[in-house]
């Protein structure tokens, strides 16, 4: 059962709204609080895609849980003062995302407050009034410094007083739940990470099936550096990636890339391994990690094996993986000083949309020549692709305009896009060319842009 239905139809808490049932509108956003290495962390989630099992051991906060009626909390007051609510149906979702912002450790800037509501759709206001309200909410936190966000929010009466007791309550909850997380033996559960795609594609089927929840498993978490490698747990979410010091150091533009990937609540739930095994030909994280030549570690509970990500895909939505196997971790070589990396994505709507075409490049230079290059491209074939012929052509050459033009002509021979709701085949072909140009224009600023256009 999705958490949303449990909240609305079993707990009869109707402040959380049903909008789209696919995590795309944010009307159902709630907060999930948990202890991570003893630190209280809240994330906004779209409850329509949250399997009830992922709520296990968490503090689930609905709009009713941030109310301090008859008074409004300052977030709600800011929404009211700025006329940021019209029909009101999306409003609880916005309030919850902003409450999540108040419980987050990010800098309390207007920009971050707006980023916190990037997964909320409003059809009435045109967002300008909501932007004004978000700016006010950011000012509520200016004096927080390093204080624990939940304590600060409770002390300043931004959120109800009970938030001060949650840390202790979660501790005792986890203690009492110890040992309950393993599925019964002899069951063949399906593996569910964040559920952000599974619960869009097959919500009914999942109602009937035993599930092994991977998102909350401590041993599948963490992003660490081991020598020249970066090792990621399979349940690492996109938000974890974004907040990782290792990733930030080696990919300075990471925030720009990941801002194009779904929305805050979805990034809070979606795991990178989930993106790999989902096998969408257009998975953003798959394209990103393909270009890094990532290696996967798979386990069936008894045996483990490794497999390069590029060898995972057999055909459309088909994997070289048996049903009992799940990804435990993955790793890639961190880029050295001579390696450039870049990610491009174009979708109909820039944010919170699925790509028409996406592409990532990793390119290593030696003496002004390309010594190694990998170009991953999504949306141009049945599986996420590495453009191997294009890469072979580029190896050993200098990145000049004539070479680049030849490269994308070769790329055209490697790809087989189809027309669908994300664009016509003709468009996708042209777009991939443009994204290859964009890679080179970004990584080699000395290129004469007008010769490439």
């Amino acid at each position, binding site marked *: 059962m999705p958490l949303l239905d449990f909240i609305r139809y079993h707990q*009869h808490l*109707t*402040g*959380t*709204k049903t*909008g*789209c*049932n*696919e995590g*795309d509108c944010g*009307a159902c956003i709630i907060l999930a609080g948990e202890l991570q290495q003893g630190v209280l962390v809240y994330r906004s989630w779209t409850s329509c895609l949250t399997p009830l099992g992922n709520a296990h051991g968490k503090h689930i906060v*609905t*709009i009713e849980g941030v*109310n301090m*009626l008859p008074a*409004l909390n300052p977030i709600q*007051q800011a*929404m*009211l*003062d700025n*006329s940021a*609510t*019209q*029909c*009101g*149906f999306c*409003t*609880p979702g916005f309030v919850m995302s902003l409450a999540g912002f108040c419980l987050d450790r990010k800098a309390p800037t207007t920009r971050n407050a*707006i980023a916190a509501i990037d997964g909320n*759709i*409003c*059809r*009435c206001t*045109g*967002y*300008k*009034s*909501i*932007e004004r309200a978000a700016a006010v909410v950011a000012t509520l936190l200016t004096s927080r410094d390093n204080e624990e966000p939940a304590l600060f929010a409770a002390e300043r009466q931004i959120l109800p007083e009970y938030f001060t007791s949650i840390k202790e309550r979660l501790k005792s909850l986890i203690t009492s739940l110890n040992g309950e997380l393993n599925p019964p033996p002899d069951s063949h559960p399906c593996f569910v990470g964040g559920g952000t795609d599974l619960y*869009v594609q097959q919500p*009914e089927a999942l*109602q009937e099936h035993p599930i092994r929840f991977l998102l909350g498993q401590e041993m599948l978490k963490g992003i660490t550096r081991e020598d020249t490698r970066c090792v990621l747990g399979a349940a690492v979410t996109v938000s974890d990636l974004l907040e990782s010091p290792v990733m930030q150091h080696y990919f300075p533009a990471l925030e720009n890339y990941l801002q194009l990937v779904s*929305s805050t609540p979805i990034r809070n739930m979606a795991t990178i391994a989930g993106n790999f095994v989902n096998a969408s030909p257009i998975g953003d994280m798959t394209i990103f990690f393909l270009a890094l030549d990532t290696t996967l570690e798979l386990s069936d509970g008894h045996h483990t094996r490794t497999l390069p990500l590029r060898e995972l895909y057999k055909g459309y939505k088909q994997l070289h993986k048996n049903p009992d196997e799940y990804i435990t971790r993955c790793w890639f070589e961190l880029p050295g000083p001579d390696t450039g990396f870049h990610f491009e994505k*174009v979708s*109909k*709507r820039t*944010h919170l949309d699925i790509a028409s075409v996406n592409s990532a490049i990793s390119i290593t230079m030696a003496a002004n020549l390309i010594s190694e290059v990998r170009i991953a491209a999504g949306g141009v074939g049945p599986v996420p692709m590495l453009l191997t012929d294009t890469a072979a052509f580029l190896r050993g050459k200098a990145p000049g305009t004539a070479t680049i033009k030849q490269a994308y002509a070769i790329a055209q021979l490697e790809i087989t896009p189809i*027309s*669908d*709701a994300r*664009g*016509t085949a003709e*468009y996708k072909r042209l*777009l991939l060319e*443009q994204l290859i*140009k964009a890679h080179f*224009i970004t990584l080699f600023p000395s290129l004469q*842009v*007008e010769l490439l*256009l």
Partner: protein
Amino acid sequence: MKNIDSNTHVSGTSVYLDDVPVMNGTLFGAAFESPSAHGVIRELILDDALRIPGVVRVFTAADIPGQNEIGGIIKDEPLLADTHVHFCGMPVAFVVARTREAARAAVKKIRIRIDALPVITDPREAQAKGELIIPPRTFRQGDTDLAWPQCTHIFTGNADINGQEHLYIETQGAYVIPQEHNSLRIYSSTQGPTAVQRVVAAITGASMHQFEVIVTRLGGGFGGKEDQANTWAALCALAAWILKKPVKYALHRMEDMAMTGKRHPYAADFKIGLDKDLKILAYEVSFFQNAGASADLSPAVLARTLFHCTNAYYIPHVKATAWSCRTHLPPNTAFRGFGGPQGMFVIEAAIAKAARVLQVDAALIQKTNLIATGQTFPYGQIAASEAGTCWDKAETLYDVVEQQRKVQLFNTENKLLKKGIAFMPICFGISFTNTMMNNARSLVHVYSDGSVGISTGAVEMGQGVNTKILQVAAQTFSIPANKIKLNHTSTYTIANTSPSAASATADLNGKATLIACNAILDRLKQLAAEAFHVTPADITLENGHVLVNQQPSSWNWQQLVTTAFAQRINLSEHGHYATPEIHYDAVKEKGHPFAYHVYGTAILEATVDCLRGTYTIDTVKVVHDFGNSMNTDIDRGQIEGGIVQGIGWMTLEEVIYDREGKLRSNALSTYKVPDIYAVPKTIAIDALQTTRDNLAVFRSKAVGEPPLMYGIGAWFALHNAIRAFHPHADIPFITPMTPEKVLLALYSKTNTETNQQHAETVSHLGSDL
């Protein structure tokens, strides 16, 4: 004053349809929809569905005791398909079960065998085959045949305008509870409670007085719940009527998107003639409206396309013809602007075409031809125009010369990015174009403790109509807002209502409230005058006090009401308002259909990434004709929201059907509306405060629909930015201008500006996916 629902909205305590507490014994419905766009039903197999545990019954057309008919304007729409299916998503059967999950599971088990018939998705094809909803209508002014020889420049072309999904965040739904004496209480998420009542009466074969339709509020409507809320209410009512049990159906988003109609797509051909001074002398236009499978509101939408086919311009010679074409899509329906925006897009396209061939700024042609007071619209109404005033104020206030200079400089300095500017003047008529519908009623009770309860036919859907009505009462009685409550809309309280639509709801229901309040006030003043031995004219109410000859008296509002109650004076009134002055002759296609017009001018700026084809709409700067806004908070919200919805329609929002008439953009993952990052960085709004008398409530002009049409300028700003990169780019007049269309235009072959044939139209329809 803030929207009076703000408090409950932000705390999640506002009640929408799916939040009404469910009674014990409630059953849950789900509709089985046609998988084919056109065909004959050979067999409908329900056995497997009926075997699902919890399923109570499956209703089909044969179970309808009254008429199987829900058409509003024309009786051409069955509630449940009987022998034929006419669009993918057409309801064929209605499952009722003890749980929502069982109902949905049962729908999946229903099997249907349909013999396919040819499918039409293109309105031009339907028109060619004579598949028309109503005979074509033509508006004429002057004589275009005589005018063409006088034109220095003549241009022809065509436009192809896509639809728009309403995407109210609250999906459609209804909850019907049987009452005593063969009556039903119907909670419906509808803009038109009376329409629901009428349809339920027809379906059950009973009378309207047996059905109470209750609407507290909608989680967005935008026209999508004007007529198309009827189906769900009628299905639930049918089941509740027969089973004598409460029945509820709140649609899943994918059901909603698949089964409901959208804004009408249009194809159009235009011919425009200008003299050497860029005055438009003649304009001929043919509109091919994609009505979908049945009439719904299409004939009325078609009328408004004609009414607004010259937008804010005066053109002496006009011939505009419109065909309402029957296709095999879900019946298209009302959507904010109601056909007006499509009419306006085509004249703007014609002007843009003239401008690009003549190598002049389109704004020059636009400005030269703005309608002036005293000039006549093609339908005979004489303009009281603010078009020029709005334009001139916008030009000065926002320093357009400087903006244009900066854009030119930017375009010279940047290779990868190009900017474009477009002006978008608007002129929108206020009133239902069906004159009969321009009336409303309000029931005002003053209780003996001095508090006031108001019921009207208006439906609150975020537009703030209840707040404005409350303001009318508060101002008339001169009492604080917290003494007044607006009640839910009910057909038992207010009968024979027009839907909340046409931007006119606050005007009509506000005026009716004013009439009711004034009637009570007159009686109270009479009482006070007798008590203080003066005439009623000497009595005024101010901030809860009774003044006699402007001097404070010993009475306040409370005492006045208490005394009136004791003296058995009627403290209630049912006010009725019908808009004066309006009339229309549909045979001559001439008259005075609108109470007044709303004018405005927007200046939009866009930036195109010429490498990727992506873009941003940077600024929208508006001078808007408010008349005299009675609630600036609400009106600003309506303008910002309307602009963004209009920009969405013109840029991202792409309704895609395949050749078989199946909706491909059937979820929020495939149909993209603007998110917070897609909106312009700046939306500047300046009020044109006019003193001219109008028929708006407290002279505060209607603000619901007009701002949407500022969004049309986004298309032309992008068009101009593309041309800054590729001056001869081939940019067909097709909406929406998605990143795909932009990229293909940026790298298109040189356009020779010959008048193209219809080859590239309907590209959004029947695309092979």
